[in-house]
């Protein structure tokens, strides 16, 4: 091979290798972010410690931190260090329509990756494993779901826990009187003020709500897991480029071990606003997921049929 050919070949190889980056047309969410210079993040008000408001009413949390890492990755990918972050408050009930409507690009909260939701949205690899349990007042003497027979139960509208509890109620014919609430803080207050006997929710959120209550000792988290709830960052469906970037960032955090730092910061040290330490070490299930990341969903009604 002559030198010229060799040079040409090298040039060709370089062109071929760089071409995908240079010529790749941006699509979907990434293109929108490039055009507008803004990433819109959906956050929650009271999903402690995943996504909640601190005492300056700024959204913070484990999920928010991971999302901010994704924002860094977006900046690098688009070579736009000036990309701005806009936080939009969402609730369990509004998160999916707001996301599919385009008013947020990703939701960083406490959203269960369920097979049913995957028909509407896409999920990043699971970043937390939890499941439905029940919080009650200690003085009520309720020890499990069956103790709710004929009582009032509050649920947060639009959650998988709502479905699991209702399915359980149907199956066991408990005759529970359900009242809906808009977000976890409101639901918890319903138990606190004695309006409802119990509140079924992901156990980690229950522990955090209890920890931030005025008198944590008044409450007890009871019952078997009624469902498994893997949490993931939610984004729009059918946007492979964006999903790849998000997935790579999350698994990157897992591989580098940086996730442990973020985890410790939110689950095993004092967190705002009150400086509570949840003291919640990483579960074996989550450790396994960090080793082998997965974005698989679960059935919507947990361990019940629906």
């Amino acid at each position: 091979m002559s030198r010229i050919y060799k040079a040409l070949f090298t040039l060709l190889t370089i062109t071929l290798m760089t071409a995908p980056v240079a010529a790749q047309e941006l699509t979907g969410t990434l293109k929108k972010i490039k055009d507008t210079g803004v990433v819109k993040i959906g956050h929650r008000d009271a999903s402690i410690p995943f996504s909640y408001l601190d005492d300056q009413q700024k959204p913070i949390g484990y999920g928010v931190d991971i999302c901010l890492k994704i924002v860094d990755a977006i900046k690098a990918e688009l070579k736009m260090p000036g990309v701005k972050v806009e936080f939009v408050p969402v609730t369990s009930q509004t998160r999916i329509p707001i996301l599919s409507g385009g008013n947020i690009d990703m939701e960083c909260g406490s959203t269960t990756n369920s097979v049913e939701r995957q028909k509407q949205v896409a999920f990043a690899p699971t970043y937390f494993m939890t499941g439905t349990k029940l919080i009650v007042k200690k003085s009520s003497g309720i020890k499990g779901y069956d103790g709710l027979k004929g009582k009032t139960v509050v649920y947060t509208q639009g959650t998988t826990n709502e479905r699991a509890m209702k399915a359980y109620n149907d199956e066991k014919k408990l005759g529970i009187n359900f009242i809906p609430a808009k977000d976890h803080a409101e639901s918890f207050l319903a138990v606190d003020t004695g309006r409802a006997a119990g509140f079924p929710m992901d156990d980690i959120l229950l522990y955090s709500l209890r920890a931030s209550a005025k008198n944590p000792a008044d409450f007890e988290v009871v019952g078997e897991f009624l469902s498994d709830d893997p949490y993931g960052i939610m984004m729009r469906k059918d946007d492979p480029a964006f999903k790849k970037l998000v997935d790579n960032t999350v698994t990157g955090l897992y591989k580098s071990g940086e996730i442990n730092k973020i985890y410790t910061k939110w689950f095993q040290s004092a967190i705002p606003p009150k400086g509570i330490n949840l003291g919640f070490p990483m579960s074996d299930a989550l450790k396994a997921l960090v080793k082998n990341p997965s974005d698989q969903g679960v059935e919507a009604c947990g361990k019940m049929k629906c």
Partner: protein
Amino acid sequence: MFTGFDFDVIQRSLPYLWQGMVFTLGLTMLSMAGGIFLGTLLALMRLSSSRILNLPAGGYVNLLRSTPLILVIFWFYFLVPIAIKKISGDAYAQGIGPFYSALIAFTMFEAAYYCEIIRAGIQSVPRGQVQAAYALGLNYRLAMMKVVLPQAFRNMIPILLTQGIILFQDTSLVYVVGLTDFMGAAGKVAQRDGRLVEMYLFAALVYFLLCFTASHIVKRLQVRYSVGR
């Protein structure tokens, strides 16, 4: 009666509440302006003798006036972004943002109410005025712009402002989609800190003082305007 309550929580959250109030006031002013503008167009359409103009306007006004505001907010908040996508054919179309979604919902809703106020206002201008304007050689547009609407609006100012006060109260309903207006801010602090009593009573007091003052100013205006006539 209020032992065990903590009114300090209000002071601690004042900056946040203020942000909420800015949202509320912005939403009120802008949707009032938009509502009056759109309402005027609708009123002119409703008063037109052309069926193609007055039927759709009448239908729109009656539809919106029969529907609860909360349902209208849901319609616009959840479905308009999807409609934009369908129409533009761009599956990744950026939503217009929560503030503008709410703004559009309130503008469209208020337009129906403003339309009826303005229609009555226009009808209160004596017919002779219009006839005189035409006799002077003004066309429809000029007769409306120079003769009828200025008089109609002068008569309507108190009612338009009263409707504005109602709108100011109604903006609290963005609570249902989780936005942080004044009430939303109060509610979020109330729930996070378990201070429902303190925050909701404070919110009620603030709304009362603002609306009470505003409606008294409107009453004064009303007296002054009726004297001028």
